């Protein structure tokens, strides 16, 4: 078998060296009643060519973003990924290593993570960033737990514009510790500031705001931070780092913790994962951060080197008193983001952001000229916006899909009050022509 190099002769020689007759003799500690007495019921092994054929058939039934014109967002975006990203992360020395427990033999991973931490800190305007968490949703959950640990308070207040899937994950993570979650309404698509002022108080560990939020709207983070800090609570901001070449860094708007989904930074859509959980905070919270941190230091010859550090926060040292249970994270996705950000660089990220913003605004303008279609919310938006349609969005989406256009995400499953809502995202990859095609198809679909 091709992944198993031991030949029969090898096996015989090894068994002889061990001093047993058969492999079964090595399993004698397993009591008979603990053994499976039959083969596993699995489909027969497939030869490589047959397996490839089967997998291609499975893949072909999916409407991927290459075959279609994709206006789907809602937390995952069809941004362009430059070729070197996949080539570099595929190098076996990165791809097939593990957590750099032996730093002398892991400087490549460690140095790239240190670069990642630097880039994320710079983008978010924060002092420190960790070496990544599973995804945006679990980053937000970890931030909520951290705010609870820092403040000793038991209530997390979330703006209703926070991605509803993230809110469910936060609720899952918080149920064991009995943290109370409260939602501030967003009747106009953004945080109702008066309601927030009433709800954020002495029991509040943190207020969570996402900007741009799930509906694409930009929130006034600075104003939210002000009312949060007045109550002695922490300001958690969820942000898409792919936008931060153009949009102001949350750190400069008063955030104490910034989390986000980093998928837009070179990570494939991959039906939802693996993605990249961004987590950054102010320096004063560095010993409370979840997950890994890489620090610079020197070796015994005085050379610069990098190592995992402040590990007494982590589960493998602190066990039940760790800041988080995270162990395996998404280091390779962090490397994708690092290479992506190195390629786009200072001006490229701003350019990609500008293109997304401009095309989204063109699309909004173009689509709201379709009879019966209007913007759902009046707030300013960046690369994504909610529309109100005169016909059931599910049916419109199904009809446009037949023309090869993934028109957007119906909002009804996320909020019943938004039954006529369609969320449309436009990245730098969409062309003016594709947007015009969407407008044309939508005109017919709602007529």
């Amino acid at each position, binding site marked *: 078998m091709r992944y198993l190099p031991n030949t029969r002769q090898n096996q015989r020689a090894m068994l002889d060296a061990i001093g047993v007759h058969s492999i079964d003799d*090595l*399993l004698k500690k397993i009591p008979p009643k603990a053994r499976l007495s039959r083969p*596993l019921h699995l489909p027969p092994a497939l030869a490589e060519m047959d397996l490839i054929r089967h997998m291609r058939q499975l893949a072909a039934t999916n409407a991927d973003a290459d075959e279609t014109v994709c206006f789907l967002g809602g937390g995952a975006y069809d941004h362009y990924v430059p070729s070197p990203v996949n080539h570099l992360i595929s190098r076996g020395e990165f791809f097939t290593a593990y957590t750099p427990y032996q730093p002398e033999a892991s*400087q490549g991973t460690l140095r790239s993570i240190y670069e990642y931490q630097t880039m994320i800190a710079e983008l978010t305007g924060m002092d420190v960033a960790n070496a990544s968490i599973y995804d945006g949703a679990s980053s937000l959950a970890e931030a909520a737990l951290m705010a609870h640990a820092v403040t000793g308070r038991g209530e997390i207040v979330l703006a209703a514009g926070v991605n509803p899937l993230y809110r469910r994950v936060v609720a*899952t993570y918080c149920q*064991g510790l009995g943290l109370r979650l409260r939602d501030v309404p967003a009747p106009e698509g953004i945080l109702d500031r008066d309601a927030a002022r009433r709800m954020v108080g002495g029991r509040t560990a943190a207020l969570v705001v996402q900007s741009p939020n799930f509906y694409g709207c930009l929130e006034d983070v600075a104003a939210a931070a002000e009312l949060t800090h007045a109550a002695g609570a922490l300001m958690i901001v969820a942000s898409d780092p792919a936008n931060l070449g153009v949009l102001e860094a949350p750190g400069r708007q008063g955030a104490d913790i910034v989390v986000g989904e980093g998928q837009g930074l070179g990570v494939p859509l991959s039906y939802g994962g693996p993605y990249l959980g961004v987590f950054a905070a102010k320096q004063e919270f560095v010993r409370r951060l979840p997950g890994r941190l890489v620090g610079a230091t020197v070796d015994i010859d005085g050379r610069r080197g990098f190592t995992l550090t402040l590990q007494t926060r982590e589960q493998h040292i602190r066990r039940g008193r760790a800041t988080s*249970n995270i162990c395996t994270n998404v280091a390779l996705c962090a490397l994708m983001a690092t290479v992506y950000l190195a390629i786009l660089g*200072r001006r490229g990220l701003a350019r990609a952001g500008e*293109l997304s913003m401009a095309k989204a605004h*063109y699309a909004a303008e173009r689509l709201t000229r379709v009879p019966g279609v209007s913007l759902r919310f009046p707030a300013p938006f960046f690369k994504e916006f909610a529309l109100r349609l005169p016909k059931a969005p599910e049916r419109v989406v199904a009809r446009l899909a037949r023309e090869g256009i993934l028109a957007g995400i119906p909002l009804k499953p996320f909020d019943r009050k938004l039954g006529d809502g369609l969320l449309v995202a436009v990245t730098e990859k969409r062309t003016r022509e594709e947007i015009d095609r969407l407008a044309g198809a939508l005109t017919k679909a709602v007529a």
Partner: protein
Amino acid sequence: MPFDNAPTYDKLIFELSSPGRSAYSLPEPDVDVDAARSQIPAQYLRQEPPALPEVSELDVVRHYSRLSQLNYGLDTHFYPLGSCTMKYNPKLNEDMARLPGFARLHPLTPELLAQGALRLMHELAGLLAEIAGMDAVSLQPAAGAQGELAGVLMIRAWHQANGEKRTKVLVPDSAHGTNPASTVIAGFEVIEVKSDANGEVDLGDLERHLGPDVAAFMITMPNTLGNFEPRIVEIIEMCHARGVQVYMDGANFNAILGISRPGDLGFDVCHFNLHKTFTTPHGGGGPGAGPVGVKSHLEPFLPVPVVARDDGRYRLDWKRPKSIGKLHGLWGNFGMLVRAYTYIRTMGADGLRSVSENAVLNANYVLKRLEGHYDVAAPGPCMHECVVSARRQKRLGVTAMDVAKRLLDLGFYAPSTYFPLIVEEALMIEPTETESKETLDAFCDAMIRIAQEAESNPAIIHEAPVSTPVRRLDQTKAAREPDLRWQPKP
């Protein structure tokens, strides 16, 4: 390390930056950028572009290629990191995960246009359920630790649904750190259960702790000393008799494929580390995936959504009122699921059983070759990994860490050191089934050589490593003066 006559590469991408240099290629706008910008309030816009590097594409390619060469990876080195199962990652898996229909599929694509992905998930859940003897599997957890959290939360919800409030979870003192950490997040108090001299659960101590306030017992199988708990069935019966649920940490699943199924043994919940047992790459620390399997009584509590099949159509089932909720922002680490599915379909039942048999054979061979030179933590035969102790060497001034560093010079990554915590100077070695006898012999020769050096020339061990890009690092300085991001020199 590759042959290289240049001084070891020591640059950060920021140090290659030159104002005005660029690597990006983006089209000119075909719509009006200024018009869009004018619709966004000025205070929301960044005044200065972020200080990212300004480098050429070749700068980027060469820099990260050079960085990669500063790493040991499984593709280049034997990597016997115990409990991590660093086995070969088949290249075919990568090609399959990169098929556009998988890699370029948006998670919120209408379900009818994602049937292939949903079918793959549904089938994989079924394959894993059969392999573990469980009734249902959720693929959602993004890593083993998230699977643990899901499992413990489901146990908590089950007790609550039965009108019971149980507040404690028992964890052996040999457990992975994630077990207690996950348990605490789930709102439980952690109670440590002692291991006996062989590293097996001390049944007397377990019995003492099994009170009416205990919700679960969490145990790694085979255990972290590399042994199959011979009395596991008895342990599970003891727990069940007290209404205690039993959780299996699946980190060591690679030892028992087709040989023993946790569900048959009586376990109520187990997780799988796809990056260990099912050959998805470890990526320098992840991504992994940690699906969780349950017996039928826990099925209603699985995280939402569950992939369901009706009339040949696959869909995400959200209507599960008893669910613990959602754990991952979307549906789990799908890219890893494609790789694991590819692997299982490549191997089939016989192949998977051979995997475990060869993993066990390789570990026992290593144990046999080393037992005269190092103390053995528990008597053999072991399962797919073994724990030896550098206790003997420590008396000569050579610690487990020293042995690890010397191995780096001799061309091997190191075993896990100081784990499990109950073994003094522990070195936990997991060869895996994908290594040949020749590689194991070379590794054992190196280990034996180090044991001999500890007696004859410990200085050479204390000097180690000398062939790596950097030598032993000042960990105290790293922790006392945290330097966590690059800053330009003033």
